[in-house]
């Protein structure tokens, strides 16, 4: 969690926010001084990829060896024999224990552990902390970003909706940019995959999920250092929603296809091998579909952040006139690709969700079965 001068460079874009934030200073640990730069960068990256309990915009090391953090603390909400709510500034970026109602909590690798008064962390053989982890419902950096994105979307699209009423069905301002995307999702994602008759009821979900993922992906590319869509809990939640909607809106045909793939065209004894091989595969497919969704989004966003930050980190490892500009150029190129990936991943998630909805809500023409009966 030691951030050095290079973060200043990385997060320079966030400077303007500094006026609204507070600064906290902590003493530099002498032992940490000699730490290898590579390890430091690696730690910084892995720290960045995780959620955080405070919204730190950037930090730097003062001449006198003090760490200065610029950002704002967020509320910590714990369930530990009762609700415990306190500010994350109590942790001082993990450097002090937070004492609440006689309990001590320690922030260790972005997670909150319950400790004794000295803040001892016990480890098992694999160097995993074995301390009790209280249920953590804190408003973390990612939760803040979800709220910000939600508000942004609400503001953008309700104003688009209002502009239709005001302007006789013609969008104005930002709506001119977003309307074609809304229409694209309707005409090129929902309609062909779900079908003309049933696509309407899925539209709100598809639109919401597309813009939610896209905006969060784009926020992830800003120097604020946010990695919401690259967090497994987020993608799991999104995929579970797709999974639930798929199966709750599934038609009789869809379930028939899952449990009785060939229907009446096959005599009962023919179905025995189906139930041994095919049906379990179909049922596994139910789980695999959303699972692939969540892993794809998570892995793509995670990988993009790792590559980008590693390339930026390389600049400080090379520290030469040749290597640093080279990795800067590379990082620039990768961030351009990441802009594309941000859109692409949102598109893929929406597209595949629409495809799964289409499978589930499909109603077959039963002609082929009638033919088989002859």
């Amino acid at each position: 969690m030691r951030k050095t001068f290079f973060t200043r460079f990385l997060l320079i874009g966030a400077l303007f926010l500094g006026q609204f934030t507070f600064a906290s200073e902590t003493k530099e640990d002498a032992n940490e001084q000699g730490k290898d730069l590579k390890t430091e960068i690696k730690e910084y990256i892995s720290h960045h990829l995780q959620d955080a309990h405070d919204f730190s915009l950037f930090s730097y090391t003062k001449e006198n060896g003090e760490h200065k953090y610029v950002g704002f603390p967020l509320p910590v909400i714990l369930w530990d024999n009762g609700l415990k709510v306190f500010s994350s500034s109590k942790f001082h970026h993990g450097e002090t224990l937070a004492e609440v109602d006689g309990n001590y909590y320690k922030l260790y690798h972005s997670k909150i552990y319950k400790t004794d008064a000295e803040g001892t962390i016990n480890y098992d053989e694999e160097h995993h902390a074995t301390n009790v982890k209280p249920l953590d419902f804190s408003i973390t950096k990612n939760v803040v970003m979800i709220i910000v994105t939600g508000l942004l979307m609400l503001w953008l699209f309700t104003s688009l909706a209002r502009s239709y009423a005001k302007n006789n069905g013609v969008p104005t301002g930002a709506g001119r940019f977003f309307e074609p995307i809304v229409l694209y999702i309707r005409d090129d994602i929902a309609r062909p995959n779900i079908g003309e008759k049933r696509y309407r009821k899925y539209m709100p979900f598809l639109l919401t999920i597309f813009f939610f993922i896209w905006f969060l992906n784009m926020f992830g590319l800003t120097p604020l250092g946010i990695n919401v869509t690259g967090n497994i809990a987020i993608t799991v939640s999104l995929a579970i929603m797709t999974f639930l909607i798929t199966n709750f809106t599934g038609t009789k045909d869809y379930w028939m296809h899952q449990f009785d793939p060939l229907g009446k065209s096959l005599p009962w004894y023919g179905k025995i091998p189906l139930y041994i091989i095919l049906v379990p595969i179909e049922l596994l497919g139910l789980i695999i579909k959303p699972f692939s969704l969540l892993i794809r989004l998570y892995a793509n966003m995670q990988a993009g952040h790792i590559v980008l930050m590693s390339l930026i980190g390389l600049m400080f490892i090379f520290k030469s006139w040749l290597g640093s500009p080279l990795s800067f150029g590379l990082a620039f190129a990768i961030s351009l690709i990441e802009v594309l990936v941000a859109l692409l991943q949102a598109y893929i998630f929406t597209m595949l969700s629409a495809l799964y909805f289409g499978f589930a809500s499909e109603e077959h023409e039963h002609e082929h079965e009638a033919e088989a009966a002859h």
Partner: protein
Amino acid sequence: MAKLIEEFSVGLFFWQTLLFGLLLFLMWKFAWKPILKAVNDREDGIKDALAAAEDAKKEMQNVTADSEKLLKEARGEREAMLKEAREIKDKIVSDAKEQAQVEGDKLVKQAQATIESEKKAAVAEIKAQVANLSVEIAEKVIKEELSDKKKQLKLVDDMLGDIKLN
């Protein structure tokens, strides 16, 4: 996998699900519903306008066809009238010609008849006059001839001579 499970935060999952559900509801109610409705209305409007334009075009075509038909009819009528007129004219001309011919012929015939009768009359008159004149001449000649005896005898001789010769 173990790392993923290690990374999974129940709190974040809880907030994400809750907030996303809330966002979905709010967006549904206040954004997507009016937006999709407005877009659909607009598209329906465009479709209607296009259909109306198509109808108007058809109407226009009908009107054009009608006027075309009328024009054609009128033209046909004119043509027929002209033809009729021409025929009438031709008939009148030919009738007139015929009549003139007949009349002419009649006149000629009449004239011829008149001429003939005149001629006859003239010939008859001439004949009568010639006869009168001849008689008068003969009278005069005879008066002359028979004025002396000698001449009368000569005459008888001549006449007798002629008769002989005959």
